[in-house]
């Protein structure tokens, strides 16, 4: 494949779009928003074109150019189905988040810039195969997200933003240390993941390095007991921030875990994978239980994210075809369904000024469209067959049955508990009588747009899973090969 | 003979000076200052420095003191002002006196005890003062004139009505 710039464009377009949005506000009303949407839509078009051009088997697109060759630094961007799917998610959610924050006028240029930079950085994470560049994007992601929470958040936003930053930055150090070791330990200094993967690293070192990588990934995922930043960040973040957090940032953790440990440290991964499954199993139950106990709707959804991402962790660590495929599907599905729930709760908060489940209610009577939207994503949250979430979880359970039936049973239990919290959320928000909120205005056309988009995505991938699973096939077999191989 | 006269005149000047700095009334102090300066002029004449003596009389006792007199005319000379001056002097003389002694003792002692052996006198003055001043000392004179000019301008500036207001 020739030297193309499409992958670079996928990172740079949102980035420069963000800079443009920063200043676009003075050229007209809503100009910064239209600029943002245009940049993301253009990137989406480029991405789709990249999908349509034939790749070279494993990779849909591949780019490599030198940056500082003497230091072994180069830019390697590669996209396969997994990254491609996540890029679609990130660009789509970027557009959604811009639309969702349409009415925020405070520093709106910077807001749109922060949204776009988050998208740009996570795109970088999804594409980079030079470990140093990967780590660079990994840390870069924190900055706009921190801004999003601390500037436009609610309540105790500074504390939440700081918690988010401290957790992720400290964990990122593990990644950075491991990357530096990997880069410097060979005969030639290189951070090329493909070259590093060829090396024979002693087993003990592999385990240590994997722990460094895992620290960053597990905190971002997040899996209990490292999840404490997530509920606060989600609760205090603005709606757009929550959407990007749930849809993108968590996925970068899962993506990293999916991609790098099996590729770089196959033996070490095999050693640690059972512990990962234990963590995941614990987290899936723990997150679900805590979700049952929340009174803040956003916190509830945040804890369901913990539970679902724990299932993803379990799937990745399961290391068999079904569980890996399930983890991949669940990642994408959760990005859509959780963002949609955050969007809905955010819209409700805009109308009523509260997210307290004890004060909400009666949506069914006052806002039937709102209730219907809630019903769709409520079904997704509890993994109703027909939604992509079910597909993901069922595949993980299938894989778990191949690995160890105890983990499968625990996942099934978390499925049952998911009904408890989902119906609780639904009961408190949609059913009953309006306690404090009064009559709630129904969803507007601008809010319906993203919701319909997300609903279609959730149901489409649930009903026609071949679309998604075909794309993930390559990444899954690649993650499978080192573990299963000789 | 001339030496004794010079000594006498110098001693009188010192006495007048002491009186000048201790009078509570400014006019008295000024008179004693004039007396001291005139005694010094006499001393200079006795020492054979007639130019210096003449200049001393003209400029010091004449011009400078005249200026003083102009200024003194505006000074408050009431009884209470006099009393205040006397009281100030009565209460605050010890520390200055101690300081002066501190300065004077090494000065005098340095002059008197173990001083350099004095070169033998070489008779009366030789050569002309004018040749000296406008020859080798021309630069010093120029500097001094610059100083005078500066002082003149400063005085003019300060004396301008409304300068400081």
């Amino acid at each position, binding site marked *: 494949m020739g030297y193309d710039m499409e992958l670079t464009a996928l990172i740079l377009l949102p980035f420069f779009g963000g800079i443009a949005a920063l200043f676009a506000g003075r050229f007209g009303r809503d100009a910064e928003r239209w600029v943002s949407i245009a940049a993301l839509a253009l990137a989406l078009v480029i991405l789709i074109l990249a999908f349509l051009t034939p790749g070279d088997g494993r990779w849909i697109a591949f780019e490599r150019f030198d940056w500082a060759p003497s230091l072994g630094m180069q830019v390697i961007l590669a996209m396969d189905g997994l990254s491609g799917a996540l890029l679609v998610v990130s660009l789509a959610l970027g557009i959604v988040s811009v639309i969702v924050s349409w009415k925020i006028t405070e520093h709106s240029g910077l807001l749109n810039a922060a949204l776009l930079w988050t998208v740009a950085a996570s795109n970088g994470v999804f594409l980079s195969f030079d470990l140093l560049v990967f780590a660079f994007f990994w840390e870069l992601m924190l900055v706009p997200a921190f801004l999003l929470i601390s500037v436009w958040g609610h309540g105790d936003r500074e504390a939440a933003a700081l918690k988010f930053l401290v957790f992720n930055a400290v964990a990122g150090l593990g990644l950075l240390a491991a990357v530096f070791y990997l880069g410097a330990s060979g005969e030639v200094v290189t951070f090329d993941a493909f070259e590093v993967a060829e090396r024979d690293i002693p087993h003990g070192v592999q385990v240590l390095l994997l722990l460094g990588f895992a620290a960053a990934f597990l905190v971002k995922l997040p899996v209990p007991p490292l999840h404490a930043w997530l509920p606060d960040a989600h609760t205090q973040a603005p709606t757009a921030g929550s959407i990007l957090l749930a849809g993108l940032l968590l996925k970068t953790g899962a993506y990293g875990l999916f991609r790098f440990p099996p590729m770089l440290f196959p033996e070490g991964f095999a050693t640690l994978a059972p512990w990962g499954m234990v963590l995941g199993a614990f987290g899936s139950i723990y997150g679900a239980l805590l979700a049952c106990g929340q009174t803040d709707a956003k916190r509830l959804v945040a804890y369901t994210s913990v539970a679902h991402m724990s299932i993803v962790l379990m799937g990745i660590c399961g290391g068999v075809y079904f569980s890996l495929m399930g983890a991949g599907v669940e990642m994408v599905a959760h990005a859509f369904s959780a963002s949609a729930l955050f969007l809905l709760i955010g819209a409700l908060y805009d109308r009523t000024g509260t997210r307290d489940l004890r004060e909400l209610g009666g949506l069914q009577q006052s806002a039937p469209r709102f209730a219907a939207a809630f019903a769709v994503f409520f079904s997704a949250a509890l993994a109703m067959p027909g939604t992509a979430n079910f597909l993901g979880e069922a595949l993980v359970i299938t894989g778990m049955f191949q690995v160890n039936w105890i983990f499968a049973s625990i996942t099934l239990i978390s499925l049952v508990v998911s009904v408890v919290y989902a119906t609780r959320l639904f009961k408190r928000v949609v059913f009953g009588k309006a306690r404090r909120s009064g009559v709630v205005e129904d969803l507007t056309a601008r809010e319906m747009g993203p919701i319909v988009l997300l609903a279609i995505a959730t149901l489409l991938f649930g009903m026609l899973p071949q679309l998604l699973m075909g794309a993930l096939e390559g990444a899954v077999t690649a993650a499978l090969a080192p573990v299963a191989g000789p | 003979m001339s030496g004794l006269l010079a000594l006498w005149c110098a001693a009188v*000047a010192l006495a007048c*000076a002491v009186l*000048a700095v201790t009078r509570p009334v400014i006019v008295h102090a000024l008179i004693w200052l004039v007396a001291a300066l005139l005694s010094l002029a006499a001393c200079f004449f006795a020492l054979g420095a007639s130019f210096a003596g003449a200049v001393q009389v003209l400029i010091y006792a004449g011009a400078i003191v005249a200026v003083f007199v102009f200024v003194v005319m505006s000074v408050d000379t009431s009884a209470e002002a006099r009393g205040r001056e006397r009281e100030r002097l009565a209460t605050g003389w010890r520390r200055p*006196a101690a300081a002066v002694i501190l300065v004077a003792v090494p000065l005098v002692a340095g002059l008197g005890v173990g001083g350099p052996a004095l070169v033998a006198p*070489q008779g009366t003055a030789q*050569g002309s003062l004018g040749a000296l001043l406008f020859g080798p000392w021309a630069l010093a004179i120029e500097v001094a004139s610059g100083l005078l000019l500066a002082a003149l301008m400063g*005085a003019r500036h300060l*004396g301008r009505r409304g300068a400081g207001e």
Partner: protein
Amino acid sequence: MNAATLSILLLLSAGLFATGFFGLLARRAILFQLISLELMLAGPALGFIAGGAYHGGQTGQAMFVLILILAAAEVALGLALYLALRRVADVEDADTITRLRH
């Protein structure tokens, strides 16, 4: 003129200087301080003249001329300052002018 006379003259000139110095330190009225300054200048003048007479050169008188110029400049400026102070702040006590401190 012998060395003893010179020594005594020098002592007297030192006395003049010290007297002026004493006056400068002890008096608070600015005019008295100016008078004291005149005396302080007169002391060295005597010393120079005496030295010049003893050594028999013109340099003593030359130095006296310089001192004289200095004294004239000083008096001109001092009195101008005194008048300015009187006019602006009605000050005649040197101790009340302490703005240097700040």
